[in-house]
Each structure stands twice: as C-alpha cells, then as structure tokens.
C-alpha cells in the first residue's frame, strides 16, 4: 500500500517532469523551432541554422547574466518569464501530446488550456509594460491589441470541433475527431485556428508586436539572459501545444507518436510557407483582418453548424 503510493507519486513526477510533460515538451518545442527556422531559410534561399542551434541558444542565454533595467519592478521582471513557461507547460498536460492520451483531463479543460496558452501573450504584454523602454511599451501595446483581436476567433475555431463532438473535454474531442477529417467539414475553422496560432506566436506576417525594423524586439527589448531564454522556451511550448490541438482536432487525430509527428510537422510546414509568403501587416491591418474577416467567417461557419444540427436532429 505504502510502496504503491510512492510509486504513483514517482510515476506522476516522471510524467510531469520528464516524459511526456516537462523536459520532453521543451526539447520538442526547440526541435520544432529548428524545423521552422531551417525550412523558412530553405524557402528564402538561405542555408539556415544547424539542428542544435535553438538548444545552443537557450543554453547560452541561460548561462548569461540577466540585466534588470532601471525603473522596473524586479519581481515582475523576473517572475513573468517563469509564469509564461509555467502556463505553457501546464497546458501541455491537457493535450494528447506525442500521440499519448492527456496526462490529466476534466470536463471543460479545453477552455482552461486555451487560457493557459494566453498566459504567454499576457506575460509578454506585462513584461513590455513593466519596463520604461519605449520600444517595449509600444510592443506591449501591440501584443495586447493583437491578443484581443485573434483570441476570440481562435477560441471559436477550436470550439468548432468541440461543438461537433458535443464535449468540452480535450480527451473526448480528440477521440471523437479520431478518423474524422474535420478539416474538410470545418475548413474555415481550421484556417482561422492556424492563423490564430501564428498571431499568438507573433510569427510573420503577424509579427507587428515585435517588428524588428520599427520597435527592435518589441516587448522583449529589455530582456536578456535567463528571462529571454524562458520566453523563447515558452514560445516553443506554445507552438507545439497549438499544433497538437489543431492536428488532433482537425486532422483526424494523433493516435500514436508516428501520426503525431507526421501531422504536427506537416502543419508546421504550412505555417512556414505562410511566413515566407507575406509581408508584415501593420497592427491596424492585422486587427482589421481578424475582426473583419476572421471572426465573421468563423461566426458564419458556426451559424452553418447550428443550422445543420437543427436540420439533422
């Protein structure tokens, strides 16, 4: 009895910290970041980084001194990257990561997961607003503006499969979507979810919040060393969780690790192609894109789904 409890605790720790949660999520996030960079480089006629570059970057940043600038709340400055990463890693517990069943699950965890994913953006916004740097302040304003524009359509797009499955629990939606290509029945939702993920990660063309040629690095301008490393790690984690959610909802499930990697990597390649194709949108243009097209289209799809359900039931 006693030893079984200890075993359970050990097993939980293992799955939280090493596999499939924790370290494994971090490393996969870094690997996906490399795929992103390398493939983008290939599309742009460049060579791109070597496979260990993201890992090397993170190790280097972790080893560097973290400069806390004058005029900031030091606790917030140090704490925010930790919160961002913690949010992402917690979200990883609820998704069918690496094709395994989620570590933990409860009804309505889809909403919790989506809000945990938003932790990154919120922390970025706060981190920017916390400093006195003018580039950071403009970046923070843009980050939060972008959050308000993509969040609603992104949520609605992920709720589409939930509506079809009749559940708000990721495990159940995923098993419902198993073998069903919702991509073809809800194409708008799929598209909006993908672009919403790009907005969340501030990838081109939705990278106005960190537009290098205008505001240097946006909200993260003052970050160096450990804080920057943690923010980058949490971006990787967010990327991989977002890909997992979209793949398991829209691409007929990720029942085993093999399918998981094939499908999420295929999704990532779509993201990369979109990144290579477009020029950066100004912040007003991306807000307009979301509210004028994204939200309306998703709502139209929702209306269609509701009418369809009314007709068929």
């Amino acid at each position, binding site marked *: 009895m006693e030893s079984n409890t200890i075993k359970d605790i050990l097993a939980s720790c293992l799955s939280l910290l090493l596999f499939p949660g924790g370290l494994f999520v971090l490393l996969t996030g870094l690997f996906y970041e490399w795929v992103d960079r390398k493939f983008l480089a290939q599309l742009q006629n460049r060579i791109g980084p070597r496979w260990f570059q993201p890992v090397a970057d993170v190790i280097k940043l972790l080893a560097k001194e973290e400069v806390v600038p004058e005029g900031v709340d030091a606790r917030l400055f140090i704490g925010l990257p930790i919160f961002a990463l913690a949010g992402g890693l917690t979200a990883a517990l609820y998704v069918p990561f690496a094709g395994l069943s989620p570590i933990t699950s409860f009804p309505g965890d889809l909403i919790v997961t989506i809000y945990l994913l938003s932790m990154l953006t919120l922390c970025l916004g706060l981190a920017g607003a916390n400093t006195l*740097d*003018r580039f950071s302040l*403009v970046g923070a304003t843009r980050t939060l503006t972008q959050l308000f524009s993509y969040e609603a359509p992104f949520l609605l797009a992920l709720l589409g499969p939930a509506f079809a499955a009749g559940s708000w629990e990721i495990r159940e939606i995923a098993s419902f979507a198993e073998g069903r290509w919702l991509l073809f029945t809800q194409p708008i939702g799929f598209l909006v979810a993908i672009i919403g993920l790009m907005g969340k990660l501030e990838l*081109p063309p939705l990278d106005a919040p960190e537009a*290098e040629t205008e505001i240097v690095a946006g909200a993260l301008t003052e970050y160096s060393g450990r804080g920057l490393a943690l923010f980058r790690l949490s971006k990787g984690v967010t990327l991989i969780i977002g890909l997992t959610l979209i793949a398991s909802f829209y691409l007929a499930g990720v029942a085993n690790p093999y399918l998981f990697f094939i499908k999420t990597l295929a999704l990532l390649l779509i993201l990369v192609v979109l990144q290579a194709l477009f*020029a950066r949108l*100004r912040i007003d*243009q991306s807000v307009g894109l979301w509210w004028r097209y994204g939200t309306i289209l998703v709502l139209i799809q929702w209306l269609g789904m509701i009418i369809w359900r009314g007709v068929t039931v």
Partner: protein
Amino acid sequence: MHSDKTLESFTVPIGPQHPALKEPEHFLITVDGEIVTKAVVRLGYAHRGVEKATESRNWVQNLYLLERICGICSHIHATAYCLGVEQLAAVEVPPRAQAIRVLVAEMERIHSHLLWLGVAAHEAGFDTLFMYSWRDRETIMDLLESLSGNRVNYSVNVLGGVKIDIDDDLAQLILDGIHYLEERTHHYLDVVTSDAMFLQRTRGIGVMNRSQAEVLGTVGPTARASNVARDIRVEAPYGAYANYPVWITLDERGDLEARFVVRIKELFESFRIIREIVKTLPPGDLTTRIPRRIKAGETVSRVEAPRGELFYFIKSNGTDIPERIKVRTPTICNMMSVVKLAIGHQLADVPMIVVGIDPCFSCNDRMVLIDHGRNKQSGWTWEALRRYGIEYYQGHPR
C-alpha cells in the same frame, strides 16, 4: 535610456543605433498611439571630414579618397570628380573610356537598386523578397568583380580615362548576366505591383505630390516617383550619355509603390544602355595624359547617382592639391521629405518612408558652422577643427 512619458507626447527614438537603420542617424518620432505627430531628424553621426581631407592630398590621391565617400555608389563619385577635374584641365577623355565609365555607372545603378529593393522589402517585413533580390544582386556583383577585380569600390576611373578594358569574353559575360537579371526584374516588378499584402504597406503610403516634391527639393528616383522630371543623365548628359540617351522613368502617384516601380523600371533602362554600350563600344585608347598640376579655376560637376543628383564643386589654385572640394550627395536633398511625409502616418510606416528615399547617411554628413551676429568669414585649419570636435563632445556628454 531615459523615458519621457507625458500625457501629451510619447517619443520613440529611431536611431542612432536601431535595427531599421544600416547607418547611424537619429529620428525622433513623436507618436499619439501609433500615429506620428512630429518627426525630427538629426544628422551628423558619421561625419568623416572627407572634404577637409581632400585639401591635403593631391589630385590623384583624392580620386581614391572620394570614391570611398559611398560604399554603394563609389564609381559615380569618382566619375563626378574626374569629370570636374578633366574639365578644369581641359582634357578630352577618349570615347572608349567615356563609354566604359557609363557602362560601369549603369551596372552600379543596378547593384544599388537591387540592394535597395532588398532593404526596403526587409523593412516591410517581407524577408523572402529581401533574400531573393540580394541573391540576384550577386550576379551583378560578380560581373563587377570580373570587370575590375572588386565587388565594391571597383576603382575603374583614373584622371583622364579608365583603367579597365572590355574584351569579347567579358562582353559576353555581361550580356548573359544582364539577360538573367532582366528576367528576374520582370518578376520583381510583378511582385511589388501585385502582391496584395505588400501593397497594403506601400500603396498610398508616404504620398508626395509633384509640387511638394519640387518644394522639398527632392532628387533622383524619389522625385521621379512624384512625376518630377529630374535626371541629370537627361537634363545635362555628361560623358557618353550624349551618345546613349536615357529615357526618363516617371510615375505620377508619388507613394511608396511608385518609388518601387520607378526604381525597378529604371533597371530596364540600365539593361538597355548596358547592352547598347557593349555592342557598340567605340575602339581607341583608354586614357589620355593629364597634367599633375591643374590650372587654376573652379567648376561644377553634376552626375546622376543611383539615389539622385550628385553635385561636386571643385576649385583649383593651380597647384597639385585642390583648394576646395564640396560634395553634395542626393540623400541630403531628400532627407526633408522624410520628416515631412512621416507626419500622419503610423509608426510602422516610418521605416518604410525613411527607406523610400534610399538613404545613404554617412555620405551626407557635413559640418556647417552657423555663426550668428558676426559677419566675418574665416577658414578652419585641420588642427582647429580637430580641437573643436574634442571640445564639442566633452561639452555634450552622450
């Protein structure tokens, strides 16, 4: 970095060190939210004292110094200087040398405009176009290298002629390269005029109408994109341009898109001229003798650099060292338009508007001393200037 957050104004400094700028320059942008309400430019971060330095070097040495004013359009600086000095010395340059000068000048224009296309695309966040245009720019860089041995600072000119010749192999190489570039340029013209996302960043942004362009004194492609017919190659053909006339490229829209279109269309004009020159290169000598001491006198030499009119004033006192050389580069003429056009646009458009004039900051930095009250003219020695510079920066800690 200090912050001056007040309710009325929020200023964003672009530069002197900023990823959007390839050279140091300071733009102080006052914004209301994202809208620019005021823009101030401060020049002078890369003043190198080239003009003063010319006064202690002889005519030949100055050629190599002046070539280094601009890393991108080095040849046109040397050409402007050579034309001026040759005029003072009343020397006629052989036609073959004149044609080769124009040939290299047009190749330099291609390399400069392609470079600009990439930089401008990067400012718009369109890195794919940036990488592709710079890859294709390598073609012209390779051609310049096989022509002169150097990718930049080709140093083709000498006083009284040129030092490179073009044989049949080189001619064929140039024609092949131009053929490839022309195909690619058609593609780029297509991209900048039809890519919907890119057009959102260029169409209707930074519009400068014709009268504004004239009042602000803009030159070069920036002026031509506002339908101002200003092109020294057309107005006052110098060198071999008299034999190879240029058709001026104009656009009446005056926005950023027009500046893209004008520069890309100018490439076709350059391709045409290069082809013509390569096919009809006059035979003859490459250089003519020029005296070591230049006759006393002064002259003005104007040429069309890739960025616009480049102006040289040269004064000789009859020795082997010039008395005064004054250089005015096109960026300084176009700079005021940036400050003017940025107002009312979004902060995100400012780097695009800055890059729209194809700025070359370190070329334009001059020292001007305004001495109010005293109506007295005086010259500065090199030593006094140096001391003044040291004292200035001690009094103005940065």
